[in-house]
């Protein structure tokens, strides 16, 4: 069969880096091809070349047997290529139709917009692929899952035959992911072809026809979901065997370390973000907080770490009331914080690694004597931590901005773990990291737990919470709507809780795990 898209020998060099090294790739009509690889493996570069954002140094792109020259996204769109970006490119105050027709407006004579015609077309596309989108809805009123569908409609509206989807599931709940996979099925059943970029192995196994693994700019393997298993794929991605399952013993929880009672947090606009929640975390256990992003987890963590004020309620750490204490007081209590946004809160990017490693201990001995800092001690500390935590950096004096995401996160973990701590508050500790770094950070978290540290783990990655946590609290609209034992919790149950469904579900009514027929 003739491939609809073929990449031959695509090579792209950046100063000092070979981002794509003679990549060959074929995409057939009506298939979902997974492009699997770690961050920095070259997936995004390759797709940006295909989408006309970069020009390749070598190689050619062939669509339907014809070599094309994509100089800009406009060329790519004309060639029938569309891209769903990880961050949506929608205008919140416009409605669906306006967003979809943007850049390809239907006009009546004299240049007046023909919105009804466009709306009809949007409805038609929506019905064709069962996307249930109202053309007149405002984007800002739509949940994230539906906004993503608008992005897909936008591409189809431009008559795309090949859809590139860049980590589309990163922002969705498990249920929304299932629905997305249904839509992807509908698309390929009607003759579209999809390139699906991801680093999540479970999704690759569930929804794709073929898997191409990229590492360090090269294609290192190809497989199908039937042949491959997650361990093999992970090893291919990383280049060495990877432990996917986190090995851990049963927790031995002891006394309370963190006790939160009736905590309420409101944001600047007086909207309630955390709504009267109470929980506790004991020494030697991990309490996982699951939930779709934006259900109050961020505000909860910021309040616990002193970055946001509590409206009501109390926070006690080791019996001491620290409600509305300032961040330094809380840190001095033995609390470590891995912040949700490492670049915004956790690191000072332009300054060297060694300074970032003392970001919240710089005023303590031995790093400072009086007010005079001790550069030798700070450097020594840095060398030790770089060694202990396997931080990949040319040396400790380069600025943190030059490190990869995984190594930046390791800098934070190293800093927070290197002082005596009683409580660790980790928010999205592995977001955006590659398999190798995730494995490493997970192992460190379990080690810390076994050392008797209390850990509050907040993550929107359900798999992560299920693997690491001993108990799981699910947050929905600012409330903890259930706390379940991690050993017996199922993904379906948690997924429903994350969507706010609290009614007891009987085993028969549980949604069957979706099985998809493989289109060959």
């Amino acid at each position: 069969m003739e491939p609809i898209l073929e990449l031959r020998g695509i090579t792209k060099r950046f100063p000092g880096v070979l981002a794509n090294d003679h990549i060959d790739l074929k995409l057939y009509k009506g298939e979902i091809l997974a492009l699997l690889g770690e961050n920095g493996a070259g997936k995004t570069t390759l797709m940006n070349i295909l989408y006309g954002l970069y020009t390749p140094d070598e190689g050619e792109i062939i669509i339907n047997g014809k070599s094309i020259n994509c100089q800009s996204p406009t060329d790519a769109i004309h060639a029938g290529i569309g891209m769903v970006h990880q961050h949506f490119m929608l205008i919140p105050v416009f409605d669906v139709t306006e967003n979809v027709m943007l850049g390809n407006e239907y006009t009546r004579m004299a240049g007046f917009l023909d919105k009804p015609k466009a709306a009809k077309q949007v409805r038609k596309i929506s019905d064709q692929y069962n996307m249930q989108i109202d053309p007149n809805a405002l984007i800002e009123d739509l949940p994230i899952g539906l906004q993503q569908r608008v992005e897909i409609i936008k591409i189809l509206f431009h008559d795309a035959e090949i859809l590139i989807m860049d980590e589309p599931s990163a922002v969705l709940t498990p249920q929304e992911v299932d629905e997305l996979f249904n839509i992807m099925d509908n698309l390929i059943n009607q003759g579209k072809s999809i390139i699906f970029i991801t680093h999540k192995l479970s999704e690759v196994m569930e929804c794709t026809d073929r898997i191409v693994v990229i590492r360090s700019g090269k294609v290192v393997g190809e497989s199908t979901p039937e042949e491959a298993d997650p361990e093999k794929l992970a090893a291919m991605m990383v280049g060495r065997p990877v432990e996917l399952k986190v090995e851990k013993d049963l927790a031995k929880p002891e006394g309370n370390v963190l006790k939160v009672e009736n905590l309420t947090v409101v944001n600047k606009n007086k909207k309630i973000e955390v709504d009267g929640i109470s929980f506790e975390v004991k020494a030697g256990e991990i309490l996982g907080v699951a939930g779709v992003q934006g259900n109050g987890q961020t505000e909860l963590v910021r309040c616990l770490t002193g970055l946001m004020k509590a409206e009501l309620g109390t926070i006690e750490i080791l019996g001491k009331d620290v409600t509305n204490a300032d961040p330094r007081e809380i840190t001095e209590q033995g609390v470590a914080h891995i912040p949700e946004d490492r670049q915004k809160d956790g690191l000072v990017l332009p300054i060297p690694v060694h300074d970032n490693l003392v970001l919240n201990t710089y005023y303590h001995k031995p790093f400072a004597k009086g007010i005079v800092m001790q550069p030798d001690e700070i450097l020594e500390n840095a060398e030790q931590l770089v060694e202990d935590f396997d931080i990949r950096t040319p040396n400790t004096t380069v600025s943190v901005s030059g490190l990869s995401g995984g190594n930046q996160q390791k800098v934070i973990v190293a800093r927070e773990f290197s002082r005596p701590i009683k409580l660790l508050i980790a928010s999205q500790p592995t977001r955006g990291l590659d398999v190798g770094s995730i494995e490493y950070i997970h192992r460190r978290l379990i080690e810390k737990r076994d050392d008797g540290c209390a850990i509050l783990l907040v993550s929107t990655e359900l798999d992560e919470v299920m693997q690491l946590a001993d108990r799981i609290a699910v947050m929905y609209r600012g409330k903890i709507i259930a706390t379940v034992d991690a050993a017996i919790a199922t993904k379906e149950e948690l997924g429903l809780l994350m969507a706010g469904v609290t009614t007891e579900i009987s085993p028969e009514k549980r949604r069957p795990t979706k099985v998809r027929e493989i289109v060959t």
Partner: protein
Amino acid sequence: MEEKQDSEKRNFFSILLEEISKSSLTIIILAIFTGLVLGGILAAGTTQEIYEAFDESFSTGITESLKFIWETYSSLFIGSVGNPSKMFSALFSGDSQEIRSAFKPFLESLVVTTPYLLTGVAVALAFQAGVFNIGGEGQLFMGSIMAGWAGWTFKGLPSIIHVPLALSIGILAGALWGFIPGWLKAKTGSHEVINTIMMNYIAFNLSQYLIIGPFQDPNESFKTRFVEESARLWRFFEDPLRLHVGFIIAIVVAILVWYVLYKTTWGFEFRIVGLNPNAAKYAGINSSLITILALTISGAIAGLAGAIEMLGVNFRAVQSLTTGYGFDAIAIALLAKNHPLWVIVTAMLFGFMRQGSRVMQINTGIPIDIISILQGFILFFIAAPAIIRTIYRLKEPKQTEITPQLSGPGEKL
């Protein structure tokens, strides 16, 4: 949410600051060179004789232009540094009178450099903590007038007490002028750029009122009395050389600020707040306090600059418009990438240009303002490094930082 709005507010200035701090030494030197070339062309282009020469023939025009530009810059050099041949022969002759007159331009330039150096350090310090002190001029005015007040009010004090007293009062006045916008920013979030500019106007008008009002010399209108002899700064040479101990004080302040910024926990906190206010909050740094401190200390240093001008050079205040020091200081600090030690160099650049331009105006008739245009060009090119890179075919700085990203966790770098 609040952080997001905050970061948007900082946008314009942050981007400017980032661009300038990224530029390399090569870019800065080339920018200065390009600025000089363009300034020369502009100077020639605004001169009647050049057009007459071009009327004669093209080649005469070109030679005349080149001659004119050479004359312009050589008189700028002689005016600011001195005449090299005269300096050499004076040194060989060993006659102290001759040496003094030969080195007068150089020493006078150092006098002009002094307020530039202090206000430049003041602005750089504030920048490092992420606040924009546009109010250096007002702080300098307040420092000057209040140091003067202390200089002529207290009588019969020994110099060793009177000078430090008057300087301290000037420092306090400048500090107060910095503290007010700092406090407003920390407590109400109002932007320091607006408030420091407003404080400038208050300072101008308040000092004008004082000069023609309570502080006016009973015998001479629109001027204050002279400060007492005991309050005047010690000078290194006899009149007419004016180089005074204030220049040394300024150098010491620059070194001190450098030490505090880069070697102490206080400086660490300043820089963290300046580079990433969110991370500063996360690290438990009291950023409101740092903001207030940064503007207060910045104001104090600018106040010191004013006090030194009063006690070392002017000895009295005269009703006048702005001096421009506080505004040029922003350019000086940016040019030095806010590094206090580099400020010594860039302040000298500005000081020497300002001093030399007076001689240039007398010799060639080119207005002093050409220097402002020249400085404008230099800053413009530093802020827009792409232009300099295009003109001189420089390569983009290599992004070696990408390299570590590509090595997977499996392999060592």
